[in-house]
């Protein structure tokens, strides 16, 4: 099961849980499964299948731009971070 680190500002939706687990072959499937347990979570983190503007998604330490279609493994770890690229 993939591990999702819930950003503190949306932990109200997970009952204060910082780390949750869900199965899925892609980020989309993981969050489809989480949505059943934590309604509203998906909309707080994604817009049209991609993280909200200004938000980046890190899977296994790497920031990806593929959004919800990205494949994940059983041991994958998903984080949401401020989007940044530099000067």
């Amino acid at each position, binding site marked *: 099961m993939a591990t999702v680190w819930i950003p503190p500002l949306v932990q109200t939706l997970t009952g204060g849980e910082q780390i949750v687990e869900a199965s899925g072959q892609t980020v989309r499937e993981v969050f489809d499964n989480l949505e059943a347990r934590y309604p509203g979570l998906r909309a707080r983190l994604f817009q049209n299948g991609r993280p909200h503007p200004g938000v980046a998604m890190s899977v296994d330490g790497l920031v990806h731009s593929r959004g919800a279609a990205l494949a994940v493994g059983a041991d994958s770890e998903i984080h949401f971070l*401020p989007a940044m690229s530099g000067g």
Partner: protein
Amino acid sequence: MTVKDKTKETASGQAYKVIGTRPLRPDGVDKVTGKAIYGADVQLPNTLHGAMLRSPHAHARIVSIDTSEAEVMPGVKAVVTAADLPDLDDIYADLGEGIVNLRYSSWKVLAHDKVLYHGHAIAAVAATSKTLAEEAVARIKVEYEVLPPVLDVLEAMKDDAVILHEGLRTRELGEKLEGRTNVASHIQHQRGDLEAGFAAADVIVEREFNTSTVHQGYIEPQSATGLYNDDDRITVWCSTQGAFGIRGQLSSMLQIPIARITVIPTEIGGGFGGKLDVYLEPVAVMLSQRAGNRPVKMTMNRTEVLQATGPTSGSYIRVKMGATRDGKLTAAEAFMAYDAGAFPGSPIGAGSSGIFAPYRLDNVRIDGYDVLGNKPKASAYRAPGSTNAAFASESVVDELAEKLGIDPLEFRLRNAVTEGDRRADGPIYDRIGFIETLTAAASHPHYEAPLDGKQRGRGVAAGFWGNWGGKSSVSASLNPDGSVNLVEGSPDIGGSRASIAMQLAEAMEIPYESVRPQVVDTDSVGFNDNTGGSRTTFGTGWAAIEVGRKLIAELKGRAAILLEADADNVGYGDGVFSSNGASIDLTEVADRIDETGSPVVASASVHPTGFGAAFAAHVVDVEVDPETGKVEILRYTAVQDAGKAIHPSYVEGQLHGGVAQGIGWALNEEYVYDDEGHLLNSSLLDYRMPTALDLPLIDTVLVEVPNPGHPYGVRGVGEVPIVPPAAAVANAIYRATGVRLQSLPMAPGKILDALWAADES
């Protein structure tokens, strides 16, 4: 000096032939002989000249704009205002500094219904001469309703603050909070149990820090020439860090299909993050269209650059950190408010992710706020947000080490992150070289040298920058003499033509001199993200490696024809193809390419993700004059993990540049406003950047811990060297005087105030 990680050289274990050498840069001769074409050098037939009307007020409602008198002046060909720009909904674009809302960018290019900072552009004129354009601008009449400005980031956050944008709401991860505000967004990182972490600490230090707004200080002002052609095709020549980014902004802002726009990047006289956004380009295009399809050139003067182009944020930061008696950090907390200027988009994201990134922390909380004020919109600046952050955190780390009686580098080593550790904001580090960097700093002769004399002190600080990958495309063609033309789309702001060509040469096992790299326009190569985020040698270099591999694969087949061998049995090394005892040079294959088929060309695009974090540790000696408060930098050593230094001279140059800018930020540079929000020091006489007379020779140490996320181990190197200087200098001033400065710049007046206050207490 270079310190190498002995575990790895090339992926195949062989020594590099080109990488690590120091050849001349391809663009060097033209640049030192004045032949290179920069933005303002562009001169087309029938060119008109543009000038901009700018706001005398920091905050005012625009009641009316009357351009009639300017429009009828002989020689004036066009006048535009924001009314000529399309009305945009929220459109988000990644400019290489994070996401920006192009609706706000449009309002920045020409003020919509309010002017929001001193120097905000309001209207523009195209005329047959620059002088005439400026005279016409002076005849545009604007009626203002002047409003009070908001200039302090904490004042701007108050409930009763003057509001810049009535419609702005605070964003918290996909949710908009209720209520009028100047706080555009709130970010939070939290792990562990902060209360328990501080309870476990033997020493806790909590301090507040302020930093001033500062500018990137590139020498070449913004310049753009726009041509809206009779066939509705648009061409823009400009000084930019990213031609494709400019093309995208033009397309969205002017609502013109990308296919009709060509952006030609000129040489660039410095950018440092400040040349990612459009300022003049859309205006020049609109003026050109209204002036009968004549090209329009617009070039800023220095005052316009300082008043109206992106500086980086001033900030208020509060940091609290705790540690045990044996020097282990137990908890860290930060409150960070960054001044975004007139529109959302300060570098609070990077600042909040990086503030505690060098250290292992189980209990951490970081709150970051993007706050609007009546200043020009913040733009990226070299490791955006990170110098502010490190000034705060590294000052507190230094004070903790002192209170615990532990050497400051040793204290950092005891807490330094390494592979497998979790960053403060969550993700786990891959192979990084922070410990190796700190160790190299601690063992450097500078750190062990005696420092005698009164009012002298030595300071250290560390720095983190996450780097970026982005997207890169290149193409290459083989010439009959075996040389290769390399076409790339990454503007060269730091020697990247050389570092990219070197990676192609390495991949093809040919001499560096056989590669001719060129930076081309947006029609002539595949998409490239901006030159920014320390990504170009990493990302575009990777594309060059891929294209080199493709060329060699193709040439193996061609050599097989000439050798009358099976392509699968053709080997290649050192420029020679061989099979079953027969061999042929790459140059001969190139010369006889017609015997083998079509010309040989290849292209490659990459979008890498393993960009690998960069770390730095700096050591500085200062002497403080107690009579004047002046700080003299006596000696400076910058140590940095470069992954693999492709061209060590240019990596060292990045360290020199980052340190020089960081020292300017530390000691002198600041935007000075009066109470009405007028910028008082919009010239380089009054905005005090360091000169060669202010700096010693800067020693550099390149630590090479290869980045596993790149074929040659490259990490971005351009940004992290600006992160430690402010904190390192502050820590050195403390050692020299016994006074800790918590406000940038640490200008003579502030130092004297601090010394006198210490004397009185």
